[in-house]
């Protein structure tokens, strides 16, 4: 009687196993999966490495208002502002961040900077692999935080530059 009960138990357990074999897997395949996060998946509101966004024309959204730095409880954001000129336009407004550093030694991922941002320029991405052997690597510069330029704009910019340099080449 005991044996039968034991076998029944095994079958019951195995039925779960077999049933799951035909269902989509929910185990994360990190770090062997595909995509930028190597198979790791996140809830949409996960607060990871910051991303500095661009607007639809590829300009930086950040206008260097320093509100994120002011809101930051761990004082880890450092900004130097500069003025856009007609020749060199970086952001949509008059001012842009020439230097934008986040010190991830100190950042506590509280999200206050994101809430403070009036232009939705700084957002939390899902980047999470921050570990490093050298603490100075944890100070991320603007170039590391910026969202990539949209492809079509990037190619348009390149064409523009080529055109601008074309007459010089002709000489």
């Amino acid at each position, binding site marked *: 009687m005991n044996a039968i009960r034991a076998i029944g138990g095994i079958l019951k357990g195995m039925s779960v196993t077999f049933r799951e074999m035909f269902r989509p897997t929910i185990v994360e395949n990190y770090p062997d999966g595909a995509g930028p996060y190597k198979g790791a998946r996140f809830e949409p509101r996960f607060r990871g490495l910051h991303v500095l966004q661009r607007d639809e024309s590829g300009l930086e959204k950040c*206008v*260097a*208002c*320093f*509100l994120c*730095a*002011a809101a930051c409880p761990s004082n880890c954001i450092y900004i130097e*502002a*500069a*003025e856009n000129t007609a020749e060199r336009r970086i952001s949509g*407004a*008059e*001012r842009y961040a020439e230097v934008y550093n986040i010190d991830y030694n100190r950042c506590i991922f509280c999200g206050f900077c994101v809430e403070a941002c*009036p*232009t939705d320029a700084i957002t939390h991405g899902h980047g999470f692999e921050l570990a490093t052997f050298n603490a100075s690597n944890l100070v991320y510069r603007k170039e590391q935080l910026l969202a990539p330029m949209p492809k079509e704009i990037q190619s348009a910019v390149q064409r523009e530059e080529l055109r601008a340099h074309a007459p010089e080449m002709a000489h």
Partner: protein
Amino acid sequence: MADVTITIDGNKVTAPAGTLLIEVCKSIGTEVPAFCYYPGLSLQAACRMCLVEIEKMPKMQTACTVPISEGMVVHTTTDKVRQARKSTLEFLLGNHPLDCPVCDAGGECELQDMTFSYGAAESKFMEAKLHRDEQQWSPVVFFDRPRCILCYRCVRVCGEAMDVWALGVQNRGSASIIAPNEGDHLECEECGMCIDICPVGALTSGAYRYKTRPWEMKHVGTTCMHCGDGCKTTLGVRRHETGMQIVRGDNRDKSGINGDFLCIKGRYAFDVTHSDERLTQPLVRHEGRLTPATWEAALELVASTFKRIRDEHGGSAIGVIGSNRTTNEENYLLQKFARVVLGSNNIDHHRTADFPALAAALKNTQVRTAGMRDVFNAKTILLIGNNPTDQHPLLAWQIRNNVRLHKARLFVVNAQDIKLHRQATAFAQVPSGSEAFAAAFLAGNDSVGESVGGDARNALLAMRQALKGAEEAVVIFGSEIRGAQVKAAVNLASALNAKIACLGDYANSRGAADMGLYPDLLPGYAQTSSEIFTGHWGALPEQPGWNIEQMVNAARDGQLRALLCVGSNPVVRYNVDPFVLQKTFLVVNEMFMTETASLATVVLPAACAYEKSGTFTNTMGDLQVVKKAGDLAGTKPDFEIVIEIADRMGFDVRKLVSLGGGTRADMGQSRGAQTGEADRHAVWLEAQNLEPRMTPFDPAAVLDEIQRLVPGYGEASRLNVAAGNDEHTTALEAGQGSATSDPDLVVPSEDTLFTSGTLGRYSNTLHSVIESRRKVPADKKTPV
């Protein structure tokens, strides 16, 4: 006027009848918000923010234009008032752009504060906002029209207070716009008062634009390093890769002798501190060329050479030239170094006014010196010579506003038709060089009447009549009167029972004179044999030393073997032939590679006045604190340099800087306290009856000695100075002085509003302003 009693929100208040209601409210701590009201300017009632309810008046009244009268019952916190403020804000915000994140005023914007307090967060206006592009009116003034709330403060401060009238209002109603005098640009004194006074970010400064935000800066209250007026300046400082960088100059808390005033130099010419041409490494001449060296090597070379020359040829073979821009402590230390360590009285500086002659002339008279505050409160001002509008902007401001607000009478005697003529009750144009005769004539000496010419004589005669019985008068004279002639000005002041002031040109010209940078005078204009100093310092060289001219001649003859030149450019100022100094071991402490520095054997990169602590004495004798704001890696303050040289020469620096030896060594003011507050640490120390620990590099120790030894400085309250206030000193009255020093050595700087001696040449802002004015064709230029 008689006092009346009114009721504000249930509180009884008594104030003189006719006082403005808004001021009475302010005095009891009731906030009445206002944009257009500004103390000292004419009333406008344009913004409608200050509406309050007054009983028995049918409608709400603007508190900024209502003079109080007996029995008035005022309500400032009722729902009706709050609603009115909210609605007013909604109107103001109707066309105001929402660009607070990029606006320079964001964080210190009055409109922002009011919106925060009264919360007109949502707008009922559906119409699109009017947008206009930003305009550049001058290298330092930018105008962003949509941000403007039309309070007209800028128009009034430019016209009434500055007497420039460069801004106007054009069109009317909602189309009104602030307009500059030359259509699309400004032709003015570029003082930046309009930017400072703008409650929003409509007028922004070319120097500070989009650099940072107010809360990101540290604010250091110090004294301006340009002209001799000594305006209190708040420097906004930010971290930078080369040290702390100054990004803004203003007078944030509107305190000090200048209130809200600053001229272009105070507001923008701080940029010399981070000029690309700053020297940041000691240079030593090696095979005919100046090559970089370490501080140790350079100082060692200087010290060993000085020591060798002193021991072999005596101290008189070494000369020292001091500076008009170093602190009192540094000047005092420098002359003490020359006299005690080098054993030489060969010390001089670039003289811009004849202070020793004034000190000598003041002997045995009842005449006192005037402070900058006296000029604002005097009932009669007599200005002889000088053009304060150009050379002493704060003095001109004090005079103008005293005339405007207090109805003071101004009398001007000048060789030129200067701008202050407009404020003058009477003006006399005298031939150049006869200013002293005019003073003597005004004092009642008819015999000199001939030397000023007929027309001037009549004008002076009328002026003499008008001056009779003048009360609370101040006589101010420029460097036109010097040497024995100064006596004439003092006699005039004595006859009028007036206070007197003499105008020197640079930030610490007066301090340099007070601290004894003279070959024949010790600090406090004392004789070289003065027992006050020999008693403390030991034996001093008794024979007066060489002045600048004699030093140059001695260098030509090979008698002057070494010359230490601190922050001064005698090669240009005294037209020295560069070849004369070739045989001399010339050490120059400088910020820049000036004409003098390029001849030097050793150049030591010095910190400027914004990069060190100490005190300045302005030309009127007001003692004020100088606080370290910026810093630049590689430079050292002159204070430190001199002590290091003395130390390396084997001198016991404890004899140079008395550490804690003084009875007054109770304050350590070198810590950077915030503007307008006392150094909390110092206050705490005093409360505990403790002395701060001092190092040989602490200028406070020298200030302590100055206060103990220099007559006229002892009475100044150190706590008050440390807290950022001004204290009048009386070294001129107390000192012996000398009427015999060569008056020809007084070389006025002839600065305009846009130049500042050698230093001003390195300011990009001043340059750009000069350049932009040069572009305007001469026939289109309006006189300012």
